[in-house]
């Protein structure tokens, strides 16, 4: 009986039903998009706070005024082994995390243009963990893939999200990696908006600060270990570049750790391996705080936008719903005359609205998935809000219906 009545009602008020349906579908797509964006921004901010709050950041870099000592160092026979050992000792610590981030372009072989440059970040596993970098498809690097020898011909590569259509997982392409010809094997695609925090390069005496580096248009390669003894000039150059990159880390420590502790360790190891000098620069937290504020501002603006949009949609849909229900009132009076109760009539009314809402949600879901296949998920928050809005929109007609007598209902006097 209920289904029969709902079908009849939708048939009778085709235009109104279609209007409500279209309005709901459009509102659902837009509101869901806004709510999903706010939710992911909020998540992003939480991740940001979790990752960067109450931490100290240091940047370790060669002392550019110690150039002569550096040249002398690399003339020594065992310089590479000492450099590698210094790196290993630096990296091993319970007091801090050692993040290797090398913005080093790779080249990719193109049939038309020869080798072309492409943005690349070479990173270690600590960096991927610290910045909570995840793949949308495929996988991240394994521990084994972080080490190569001079006979290795293939290196794994992860694509930034915007490069996902360029190669498929499993594709292998030729290129150069730190000036060495290699094959790159695609093993994964990063999630959209994957990012890491970089410190900017500054003039002497300036404080370095943070900025977000988004990886959507970059290739990501491992900043590998290569401990083989180099046999020729090219291999020596490759190893030197790699390890010098690795010795420019960002160091993340607890707020109780200080630059003095780090300086002490570096000096001890420099003396041990007779190495050239490094500087330790503590990175200012001011820009980090600024980034948090900007992020909070964006969430606030989006929330205000969502509330206005929702309010407008509820009033607009509620209005159309009210007119439609008002037009149905004389019909409801007929049902009352032939034996229906008001409760039954209200059940028809609410069920019909819920049916239209459900169908429009299903449509919106598929349209959302078609328009934004990956970025936007269909939000449970929006479904709950819309159900509340649906019930809210029915409240005034239900109230009026309950308080009218048969006479006024027959005349369709819900407006009075």
């Amino acid at each position, binding site marked *: 009986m209920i289904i029969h009545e709902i079908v009849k009602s939708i*048939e009778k008020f085709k235009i109104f039903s279609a209007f409500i349906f279209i309005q709901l579908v459009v509102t659902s797509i837009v509101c869901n998009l806004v709510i999903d964006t706010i939710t992911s921004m909020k998540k992003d901010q939480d991740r940001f706070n979790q990752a960067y709050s109450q931490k100290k950041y240091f940047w370790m870099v060669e002392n550019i005024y110690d150039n002569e000592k550096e040249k002398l160092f690399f003339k020594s026979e065992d310089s590479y082994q000492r450099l590698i050992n210094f790196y290993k000792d630096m990296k091993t610590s319970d007091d801090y995390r050692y993040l290797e981030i090398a913005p080093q372009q790779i080249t990719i072989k193109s049939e038309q243009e020869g080798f072309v440059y492409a943005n690349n970040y070479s990173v270690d596993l600590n960096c991927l963990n610290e910045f909570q970098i995840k793949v949308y498809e495929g996988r991240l690097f394994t521990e084994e893939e972080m080490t190569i020898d001079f006979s290795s011909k293939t290196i794994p590569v992860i694509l930034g999200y915007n490069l996902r259509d360029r190669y498929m997982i499993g594709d292998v392409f030729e290129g150069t990696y730190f000036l060495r010809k290699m094959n790159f094997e695609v093993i994964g695609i990063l999630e959209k908006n994957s990012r890491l925090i970089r410190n900017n390069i500054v003039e002497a005496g300036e404080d370095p600060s943070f900025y977000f580096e988004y990886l959507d248009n970059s290739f990501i390669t491992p900043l590998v270990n290569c401990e083989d003894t180099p046999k020729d000039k090219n291999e020596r150059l490759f190893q030197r570049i790699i390890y010098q990159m690795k010795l420019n880390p960002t160091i993340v420590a607890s707020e109780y750790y200080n630059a003095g502790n780090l300086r002490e360790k570096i000096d001890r190891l420099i003396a041990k391996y007779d190495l050239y000098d490094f500087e330790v620069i503590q990175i200012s937290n001011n820009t980090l705080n600024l980034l948090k504020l900007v992020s909070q501002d964006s969430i606030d603006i989006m929330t205000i936008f969502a509330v206005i949009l929702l309010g407008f949609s509820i009033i607009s849909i509620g209005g159309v719903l009210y007119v439609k229900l008002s037009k149905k009132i004389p*019909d409801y009076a*007929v049902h*009352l*005359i*032939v*034996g229906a*109760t008001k409760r039954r009539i209200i059940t028809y009314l609410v069920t019909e609205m819920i049916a239209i809402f459900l169908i429009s949600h299903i449509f919106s879901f598929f349209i959302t998935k078609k328009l934004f296949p990956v970025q936007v998920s269909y939000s449970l928050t929006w479904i709950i809000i819309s159900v509340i809005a649906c019930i809210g929109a029915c409240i005034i007609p239900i109230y009026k219906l309950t308080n009218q007598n*048969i*006479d006024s209902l027959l005349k369709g006097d819900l407006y009075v």
Partner: protein
Amino acid sequence: MYKIRLESINKFYGKEPNIVHALKDVTLGIREGEFLAIMGRSGSGKSTLLKVLGGLTGIHSGRYYYENIELKNNERQMSLYRNRHIGFIVQNYALLFDRTVFENVELPLRYAGISKRKREEKVLEILEQVGMEELAERFPGELSGGECQRVAIARAIVNNPDIILADEPTGALDEETEKVIMNIFAKLNEKGKTVVIVTHDYHIASQLNRIIYLKNGEIVER
């Protein structure tokens, strides 16, 4: 025995300060098989009285008996009562214009939970009784006023109610059609149905067995 008995019924409309006392201490008994007319001027309370008799509107005070059993003044019981015992015909027919004659007449049977097959049999039988069987698949918008009224009557009697209440059933009809409709009521009454008709037309009222007059919500003459 009274089929319906009302005792000291009071009914109000509106809100302070514009309250209308539509029925004032109305006491009335209607016997089984009566053919009764309720008359009065516009605003005298005759339609309200009919709606009270049909359980279509609540009362503010008084008692309502059906076959000596007092009915509670609640919506659920009244709707059951309407569905089982009352056939109601309102002014302007109150038909659903998006449904066929058949579907309109079928509606009370749906609420009564009758099976589809029985509904079909019953509706066709009733439509034949009011001379509308050939127009079963038409929509009310395609019918004349008299035909619409016959559909309204068919819908009112399809559940085989004991009591038929009609509010100005011939008000919008020509003389010829009026005769046809009154003839249907007379036949229903002959079959033992209690028929109550609200009218302001003496000619119609004179065809009935008893007339009561209402003035300002009070019965002034029986």
